[in-house]
């Protein structure tokens, strides 16, 4: 089943059981630039992702 990571309208999938930090590295995103939200709660980078998790990645950098 795996873990879904959604950035804007793009979906990525990683294996369950890895820490958020490693999942972000896997899809080439800098942890500094995103907040990960699972069921309305923000996760710290050491959080282990579970099978079936849907994680929304909120980009924090803005402005021109």
């Amino acid at each position: 089943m795996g873990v879904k990571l959604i950035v804007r309208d793009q979906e990525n999938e990683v294996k369950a059981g890895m820490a958020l930090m490693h999942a972000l590295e896997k899809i080439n995103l800098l942890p500094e630039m995103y907040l990960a939200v699972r069921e309305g709660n923000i996760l710290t980078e050491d959080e282990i992702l579970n099978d079936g998790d849907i994680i929304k990645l909120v980009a924090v950098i803005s402005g021109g």
Partner: protein
Amino acid sequence: MKCTICREKASIQMRQHRLAMCQGHFLDWIPDQTNRFIEKYQMFTQQDRVLVAVSGGKDSLSLWDVLWRSGYQADGLYIDLGIDGGFGYSSQSRRLTEQFASNRGLQLHVVGIEDQYGSSIPGLAERNQRGRGKPCSVCGLSKRHIMNQIARDLGYTVLATGHNLDDEVAVLFGNTLEWKVDALRRQSPVLQEMPGFARKVKPFCRLYERETAAYALMRGIVYIYEECPFSVGSKSLYYKELLNRLENDRPGAKLVYYLSFLRARENDLLIEPQPGPEMPLHLCPSCRQPTPIDGDCAFCRMIRKTASDIEAHSG
């Protein structure tokens, strides 16, 4: 990971401070820190009337929320830039800002550029040399002019913006790369008031963008998530990404960069103070705001040129 304060499950880690916090403690920490910076840099007091420039984004709405919760007399100013970008960027951000103010019973002043000056920001940019290519320069000039005008006309002593540490270090990085000494001299958490100019302050200048975003999410502040369509590919976004790569490898690098700059600036280590008299300022005959040249200011010249351009094309 556990909250450094209560040992409950943490929601956010701030590696630059070696801190982790649960939602409750983080929601207290942000206003505490903001108030600490307001005091440290002598930005304003509870007696000041503060005008917060709000864009509908996470930083300015979070700042207004923090100031309101901290008991300051803080009203909002929203400038409708008339930018669409295919998804109603300005109309969406205006709606979210109005909703934010009405939910909290706060006073919001709205200035519609098109209603007031006859053309939107993209329209002004099209008709003026200054905006060729991208309208960011026209937008900056218009916002600075209107913010100061409203603050002055309505008797606000302080103008607050939601600039965060990432904004500040991106500007600092750009100015350092090109060694723009004048710009470096002007970059500060506070720009003191001068005749005709309100004091400008940045109470979030030491908070990471990640923290202001987390505050907005945790507080349930609904903000415009989409970027301004004209900011795509901008230099400042590029610098922010570069600096975040550095931060990722060396936690605290952005904060050290900014604080070291402020210290150097304060101690005149970096920039020689320029001797000699200040440049005399004239009053713009149209808007009565100070301007470095005799005659209309840059904003009023732009508006007059646009009006005559529209008239010429309609006739």
